[in-house]
């Protein structure tokens, strides 16, 4: 891609209001959206607020909505976008705006505090924790999460329904819960938490979270559905229900 002049249409404003503002930028070979934002900061708008850290797709700080699509700015090459029209750049929608491209993502940190922690079973006699790669593999997929919160951003349960936030943890936290539940040495039981506090039932498996994950974690298939199955087995299994009735445990 030869150097081209591009119009970036960037959201400027804070909680009290704002508007899109156009910036003309010279885009050079290989540039990603975050490079363009830095170029705007350096020469045109030094106070343009943006979060970023690693610029290599590893920290999950620079989530934004690029031409309406939620993505990481550092991993979106300019030459993958149609630059004949202005490229719009807006903050993620689901979280309250702080300023420009920066939002208040504390929702996710507050939810994380409520997750029942890991409970490891007793050590083996020689003190070694033995786990096998095939058992670790599926949890390692969940540990790839970089907490960009794009899955939280696109989840319609909270994106369009602020009122659901107190009752719903969101896909990121379901991935976290799946990692705990499937940890080969964990003995905790979080099924009641997952059902009631985390509100897994709100999820109707539209897979928006999976589609948007920059780490390609199969959130719906590998985390959410297995969690749903666990909850169902515990609370809605008719045979178990009957057994509990008979045994008087219900």
């Amino acid at each position, binding site marked *: 891609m030869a150097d081209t002049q591009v119009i970036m249409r960037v959201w400027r404003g*804070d909680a009290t209001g704002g508007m899109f503002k156009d910036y003309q930028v010279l885009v*050079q*070979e*290989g*540039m*990603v959206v975050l*490079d363009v934002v830095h170029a705007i*900061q*350096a*020469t045109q*708008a*030094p*106070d*343009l*607020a*943006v*979060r*970023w*850290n*690693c*610029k*290599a*797709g*590893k*920290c*999950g*700080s620079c989530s934004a909505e690029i031409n309406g699509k939620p993505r990481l700015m550092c*991993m979106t*090459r300019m030459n993958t976008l149609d630059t004949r029209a202005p490229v719009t750049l807006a903050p993620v929608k689901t979280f309250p705006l*702080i*300023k*420009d491209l*920066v939002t*208040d*993502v504390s929702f996710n*940190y507050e939810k*994380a*505090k409520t997750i029942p*922690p*890991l409970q*490891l079973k007793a050590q083996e006699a020689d003190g*070694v*924790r*033995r*786990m*096998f*790669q095939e058992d*670790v593999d599926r*949890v*390692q997929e969940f*540990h*790839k*999460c*970089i*907490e960009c919160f794009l899955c939280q951003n696109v989840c319609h349960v909270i994106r369009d329904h602020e009122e659901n936030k107190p009752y719903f943890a969101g896909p990121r936290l379901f991935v976290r819960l799946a990692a*705990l539940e499937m*940890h080969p040495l964990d003995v905790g039981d979080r099924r009641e938490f997952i059902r009631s506090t985390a509100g897994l039932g709100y999820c109707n498996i539209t897979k928006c979270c999976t589609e948007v994950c920059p780490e390609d974690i199969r959130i719906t298939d590998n985390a959410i559905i297995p969690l749903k199955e666990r909850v169902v087995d515990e609370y809605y299994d008719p045979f178990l229900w009957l057994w509990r009735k008979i045994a008087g445990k219900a």
Partner: protein
Amino acid sequence: MAADKYETHEYDVLVVGAGGAGLRAAIEASAQGVKTALVCKSLLGKAHTVMAEGGIAAALGNVYPEDNWQVHFRDTMRGGKMLNNWRMAQIHAQEAPDRVRELEEWGALFDRTIDGRILQRDFGGHRYARLAHVGDRTGLEMIRTLQTHAVHKGIDVYMECNIQRLLMDGGRVCGAFGYWRESGTFVVFKTKAVVLATGGVGKAWKFTSNSWEYTGDGIALGADVGADLIDMEMVQFHPTGMVWPPSVRGILVTEGVRGDGGTLRNASGERFMFRYIPEYFKAETADNEEEADRWYEDKKNNRRTPDLLPRDEVARAINAEVKAGRGSPHGGVFLDIASRRSPEYIKKRLPSMYHQFKQLADVDITKEPMEVGPTCHYIMGGLRVDAETTATTVPGLFAAGEVAAGLHGANRLGGNSLSDLLVFGRRAGLYAAQYAKACEGRLTVDSGQIEEIAAALLAPFNNSGGENPYAIHMALQDCMQNLVGIVRTEKELKQALDQIAALKERLTRVSVEGNRQYNPGWHLALDLRSLLSVAEAVTLGALERKESRGGHAREDYPDPDPELGKVNIVLRKKNGEWSLTREPLPEMPAELKALFEEKQ
């Protein structure tokens, strides 16, 4: 009282920085039962540790039972060209295995051996496969594990809060002053002890693997209150950063590529590292391709591939190849794993490298070689600390991780950083807590000090039409890249000092637009103070060390000088001026010296 004018919090221990060292320190301090706060410039879990790729060095002996702390200690000292603080290197090698097992206890899931234990991988300068790892995203596993553990321990975390100055009561630390990035309002922490865990200063260079946070804050904070700095000239250029396209130049390519079988080639396809084996490592390095390739499978009967010489050696070799006109099209060399390992193996072992090259450079590393070149990665120098306690030379001030100096000497081995964070992060938290418990008398925060700082932080808003902070930053990065890079000369270092002085003068006229709310221009204007201060310290140290050793190479003094190998260069700041002395390294006890005399 001015102190009441600002939001104020009171703690026993304040930890500044929430990467591996800061998190581990906060966990330990909190476990000691003292009131602990953790302050970080970014959101929790985004610190630079998250970018660490290759692994955590620890002599667990899972893959090679003959590995032990003595071997790790010896590798670390030799990698550091014996400039290391021997006691730190010993503690590090001895305690790293427990720290790794502790992470596992807290939920980390490392890659496994066939018999279900923690797998270890080969890395530069380590005699045995020693790095506990998770593919090529070990740092993410580590930071998330520590983050989760800290959150469940209920430690108070102040995110996106930037500490700008330490507060002093007489000769003792009594607090810290900073601002909230979100609102730009000020915050005072009154505290008995401060642990600095702020990382390094890579953002002073143009091509760096470091994130925006790496502006030398902790080094400058410590130096400003009189703490000693050592080894500031020792800067590590990681041999393999991306070189193309220009916008990604500097992004790290893990040493794990070579650890897992990748090899460096020049434009004519030659594995040039065989021509760059220094005398110092000859006995333990393969001198032909066949032996080097056999070594991956059989370490007993073969010597290590020169692709895995310590980083300083490899970076200089790449630099020399490019200068001699044997580089790749975009000014690097080739790193080839495609022709040496299967696509499945590469994707399994190096998933994020695969991803990174595919997305950012349109290169499929399972089919074609990568183009790589040196990138500023790490500073071995920093705050001088006590080996046991991590105490700096200022009472109440502790330091751990990259901000501290001594462990790595003149050059850090890959994998020794993550283990450093855990071993000395824990010690910093422990001894800061003990110090706070024993701290007697009332500490007083002086409102005059606070008002002076507040005024200085707001000054850029008053200089309208002055210097652009981004322009000053770019000028500094060009200066350090061109004049204080991999190979240095007296003439260029002196030019760098002149340029830094001019930039400091320009900084007094820096002006920012907009208001105090989340204003990156203002934040950069404030970060420039530490960037310039630390860049100056690096340059002064580099001028003084008239020899080549580890991360410090002088074209005008190309050989090591045995006399300079016995001293640290110590920098102290008084009334804004640096003073410089040479001070002898601590003397290693005889039983440890003996480890260097035995045969390979």
